[in-house]
């Protein structure tokens, strides 16, 4: 990897480790191996959001041309959010694309992602199903997002009704994650969700 990229990442590590957000356990970055090309990020779900208290793991890949091109970031933790694919974890965020600037850092990226969790942009969606739910039935969206966060990101607030519905389908022999996706997609209507899994 180019010298600038390695030197930058090394120094950025120090910056993130020293920053006050780390002190408050809000964000974290770790090396996956010694190559500095593949990193693990972690952000805490921001307060007063369905993601509150959850820990979200990110896969961060540093391109050869970093910092002149943005890092490639993806959610490894499954998440229900209009700008993040519920299937792949791909993120739709301007600073990770054309609005990237060389003076931005991993710290600013992680903080921006945290801000994105707090303020979704449904008009520029990555996951159309989630975005529609966010716009049309925001209550169901919040509950669904909280349910996902409690199950996948160990967030403390559970959604018992939804947990029950997933358990119901699971007991019928369906895969838990598939059942959750189908229920979430069909606004928690058990019959529609089952029809969807079976078709």
């Amino acid at each position: 990897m180019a010298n600038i990229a390695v030197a930058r990442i090394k120094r950025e590590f120090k910056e993130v480790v020293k920053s006050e957000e780390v002190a408050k356990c809000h964000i974290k970055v770790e090396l996956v191996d010694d190559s500095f090309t593949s990193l693990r990020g972690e952000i805490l779900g921001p307060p007063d959001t369905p993601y509150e208290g959850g820990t979200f793991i990110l896969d961060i890949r540093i391109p050869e041309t970093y910092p002149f091109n943005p890092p490639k970031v993806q959610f490894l933790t499954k998440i229900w959010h209009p700008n993040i694919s519920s299937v792949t974890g791909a993120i739709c965020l301007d600073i990770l694309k054309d609005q990237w600037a060389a003076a931005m850092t991993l710290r600013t990226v992680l903080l921006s992602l945290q801000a994105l969790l707090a303020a979704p942009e449904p008009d520029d969606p990555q996951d159309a199903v989630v975005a529609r739910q966010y716009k049309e039935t925001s209550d169901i969206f919040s509950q669904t997002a909280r349910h996902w966060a409690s199950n996948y990101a160990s967030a403390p607030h559970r959604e018992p009704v939804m947990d029950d519905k997933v358990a119901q389908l699971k007991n019928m022999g369906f895969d838990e994650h598939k059942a959750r996706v189908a229920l979430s997609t069909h606004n928690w209507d058990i019959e529609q969700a089952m029809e969807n899994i079976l078709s």
Partner: protein
Amino acid sequence: MFEEDSENEVEDEDEEEEEEEDDFVDMGMDAEASGTHPKHDEEDFPFQVLTADEIVKHMVDCIKEVNTVVQIPATITRILLTHFKWDKEKLMECYFTEDQDKLFSDAHVVSPFRKSFTPAAAAQAASSSEIMCEICFLMIPPTELTGLECGHRFCWQCWREYLTTKIIDEGMGQTISCAAHGCDILVDDQTVMYLVTDPKVKLKYQQLITNSFVECNRLLRWCPRPDCGHVVKAQYYDCKPVKCKCTHIFCFACGENWHDPALCRLLRRWIKKCDDDSETSNWIAANTKECPKCHATIEKDGGCNHMVCKRCKLDFCWVCLGDWEPHGSSWYNCNRFDEEGAKKARDAQEKSRHALQRYLFYCNRYMNHMQSLKFENKLYASVRVKMEEMQHHNMSWIEVQFLKKAVDVLCQCRQTLMYTYVFAFYLHRNNQSIIFEENQKDLENATEQLSEYLERDITSDMLVDIKQKVQDKYRYCESRRKVLLDHVHEGYEKELWEYQDGN
């Protein structure tokens, strides 16, 4: 100006002569190349063909010209000119009549008159011995940091990498801004040339700037032929044929092959129509119906008119698209033709079916001529063989030239005919359009006959006879082509043509 033009005409003539000897085979689509196109067009429309170097010179001249008036650094002038799409007059007008600070900020440059401005970073630079470059995060002596007038400073190495990435990977030229987040101040040419050391990157940057210069300028157009690299410079913008040094003939206004009699805008619409899959949706509209309830698309491939939608289980009548129930048990008849909603659905169906057929009619003929035109490439080769053969049969070189001339005319006629179908597709029917169609038919017949003559084997005993016939025919074709084009042009002038919308 005048001198340059007259020079150019001389050059053009030279080239035409050369061509008749050399470029015998590969003329295909450039049927007009042999110089038989109505001469008045070229005289009416003076143009020059410039090389890449001449374009750069032209660009520098433009900048100098503005600079003699506005007197600001040349690199800023270039950015301002780009901002105004190289419209010098507009730049000067705004410069002297409007708020200059606003002008500079709209063009994303720092005003050269704001001398008192001291960037925060620069102030910091003076106070501390080493400061951190915000890109590589290394501590760097202030003398090794550099930046634009906006005051954001980074180290040389980072600037170089940043510019290289933008230029090579992203193909950006005149739109590269300062590397700081949210700063929209544009990087000027001098800075790029100063910071970038790799000659390849420099060259690419120059090409990008030249390209934006040509693309923005209404009086310049790149020759659209792949790898040509010449630019045609005209004195005014018009839909006229221009011939590049590489012999390619194209329309100055739109860059497509010369497309008389069709207008640029209609040709553009036509090409888009042929390219995109709007015809797929037309086919769907013409051959399928939608379920009146769930709007599933249904193609009926057999059976009776009692339809049961597979998706929503609705029973309906294929003929009238109404509910099936009132049809009772009469499975093969529908007597409910006059119902309002069903009638509308049927009318729409009918209309799109007709539109599809009409499009296919014109498209087939257009494609057919285009295809034939490609085949005429081969004809050039076979005609050359014939010409050599004839020279063995006591005919002189000059006597057999009529064959090549005939293929030239054939190609011209095919190209014109091809575009007559684009013209006709958008034409609304009136008396003049009937005359046009007659002309088109006549030219098409004559062209096909000429084509047939040229395909035929020529034996020595019928040589004199065939020569007479071919010559008569191509002269006839030429005159019919002229009649057709003159009629269309006259129609443009007198506004006789009415166009169909919505195609």
